[in-house]
């Protein structure tokens, strides 16, 4: 087993200025993109290596494990009913996508963040009418995903870029992280469509290596699916098989049988494929994602200088006053992991306030 070719592509992209390309492919630029990618691979001086496909054994292990990494069964139905959970999810994902693009994280990080969000929302009732809890949950999910998958993870204050309405202290983010971790029973090594996509692309090409374009396009589609709700009830293996079929089908006629094995049911893959194609048709052309920062190519070394947006004045004042005026209450809050977001009074937490960032680190 070796890194998936999509991750090699993602890694190559991360070395360049255009790190958001994998999420924002323009149809006309694909050929140029491929040349740029190949050029970058060459200039990095690394030997060209063929990455083997995940083995049948590995895929079987993932299929066996994947159900434990999905939202509870009734979640998709709840979202289709609209209402609070759907709004929370939409707002959270919008924010996650912005920060993801800003820092140039890999596609798997975005996919994991959404996985954690969906699993959490399917199991835990956020208090209603407190919009800051959506923001805090978004920060926690993206932070946890980045920690699982990225080499560099910004400190939690620096992570809160973009047009966030609230900015949370590090300890508040940590408490939320712990709540997400315990709610998901610390199963953060989630099986996602990215675990399978190389395998299915190979099968659809009769064992041949997928093209760079197919890998990038697959990553784009997987993230589009993760962002939407059309495929929420499908398993990651089914989504991956359907995405592989959709992408391969853009190049040549595809017999979907080849993507299906005794582990993946053809009928469900076909339905998933229909849902994906309907989504693609509705959304084409893709909405470009713009990085929110001063420069989408900013290097990580300078990320600590990113300006944290100011909290709304009212929230800032209320939070600071509340925090300072009652040390006992603050201490009590500190000892209960979930109390920071169970406040009954108003729409803020004592911990929500700006603070001067430490200069070291």
């Amino acid at each position, binding site marked *: *087993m*070796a*890194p*998936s070719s999509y*991750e*090699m592509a*993602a*890694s190559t992209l991360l070395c360049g200025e255009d790190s958001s390309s994998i999420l924002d492919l323009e149809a006309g630029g694909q050929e140029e993109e491929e040349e740029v990618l190949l050029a970058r691979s060459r200039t990095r*001086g*690394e*030997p*060209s*290596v063929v990455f083997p496909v*995940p*083995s049948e*054994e*590995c895929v079987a*292990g*993932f299929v066996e*494990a994947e159900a434990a990494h999905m939202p509870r069964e009734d979640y998709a139905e709840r979202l289709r009913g609209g209402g609070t959970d759907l709004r929370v999810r939409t707002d959270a994902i919008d924010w996650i996508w912005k920060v993801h693009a800003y820092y140039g994280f*890999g596609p*798997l990080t975005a996919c994991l963040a959404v996985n954690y969000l969906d699993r959490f929302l399917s199991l835990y009732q956020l208090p209603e009418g407190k919009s800051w809890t959506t923001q805090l949950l978004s920060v926690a999910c993206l*932070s*946890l995903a980045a*920690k*699982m*998958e990225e*080499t*560099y*993870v910004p*400190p*939690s*204050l*620096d992570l809160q870029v973009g047009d966030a309405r609230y900015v949370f202290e*590090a*300890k508040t*983010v*940590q*408490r939320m*992280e*712990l*709540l997400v*971790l*315990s709610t998901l*029973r*610390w*199963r*953060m*090594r989630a099986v996602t469509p*990215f*675990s399978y996509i190389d395998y299915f692309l190979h099968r659809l090409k009769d064992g041949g290596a997928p093209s760079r374009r197919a890998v990038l396009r697959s990553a784009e589609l997987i993230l589009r699916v993760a962002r939407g709700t059309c495929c929420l009830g499908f398993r990651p293996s089914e989504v991956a098989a359907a995405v592989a079929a959709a992408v391969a089908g853009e190049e040549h006629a595809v017999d979907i049988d080849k993507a299906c094995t005794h582990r993946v049911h053809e009928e469900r893959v076909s339905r998933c494929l229909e849902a994906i194609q309907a989504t693609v048709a509705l959304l084409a052309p893709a909405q470009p994602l713009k990085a929110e920062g001063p420069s989408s190519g900013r290097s990580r070394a300078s990320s600590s200088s990113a300006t944290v947006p100011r909290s709304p004045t009212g929230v800032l004042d209320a939070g600071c006053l509340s925090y300072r005026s009652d040390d006992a209450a603050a*201490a009590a809050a*500190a*000892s*209960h*992991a*979930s109390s920071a977001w169970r406040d009954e009074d108003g729409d803020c937490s004592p911990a929500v306030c700006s603070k001067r960032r*430490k200069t070291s*680190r």
Partner: protein
Amino acid sequence: MATIQHQAKPAVAAAPSTTTGGGQRAMDLYEKLEKVGEGTYGKVYRAREKATGRIVALKKTRLPEDDEGVPPTAMREVSLLRMLSQDPHVVRLLDLKQGVNKEGQTILYLVFEYMDTDLKKFIRGHRSNNEKIPAATVKILMYQLCKGVAFVHGRGVLHRDLKPHNLLMDRKTMALKIADLGLSRAITVPVKKYTHEILTLWYRAPEILLGATHYSTPVDIWSVGCIFAELVTNQPLFPGDSELQQLLHIFKLLGTPNEQVWPGVGKLPNWHEYPQWKPTKLSALVPGLDADGYDLLEKLLEYEPAKRIPAKKALEHPYFKDVRKGDAH
């Protein structure tokens, strides 16, 4: 004939549960008996579970309320153990407790099955007694190590820090288990470097030392080869004390690699002109193995990562023929 002792299957351990504060504090459930070591990110204690009298290992980590939040190493280890713990050759995570200390800081306790020693202590014990580890014992331990690594790799995970200290043992049964997955990574994630991590260099694969960013399962296989040699001789095979010294140690003994033995080596980021050493025979470096043993060792220590024998293939190697007979497959 060497065989692995097969214990009666224990009653299925309860699935790990996570509890948050409330009820009893973690330390009210366990009696700490002694500190036995440090893992990647925390202290390890031998402890007794008060309710059952069972002896366990408690790995404790304090979560400072700083910018990092929950440490990535803790998250990765727990997540991976949740995935891998069912294999008999990976240390079992029994429970996870979350509590608060007197200063109000969050404390995590990972509760593991207790293993009374590790391979490092085992080897050192033999060295200080001036005795070799019996050949049959070496074979049994190596077979279990390859089985554990094959399982971990089969689940798409790199360990990245295999060394004798991370291989726990039970002296009576000679059972061996892989532990300390805090630096492990999913195989699909390209790893740019060991960020801020200080690791023993002795078991590190040459492609990592030469700065490759897209390394994979063969790095663990190299570590297995180093451990194999150390089991035979009681001495580490490549004991370097800096990255450069580590590379030079390897090149002096195995010969300086070139494009013939390792296509592409010249393009790795840290490659430059090294002194041209010729390889020494493994039988001179690691006296005490039979022909099959040398053949396996050679395949584990191949320079070219793609040619290093996968753990699953290693299990089929003739060296393990007599051990396999006792394996209930």
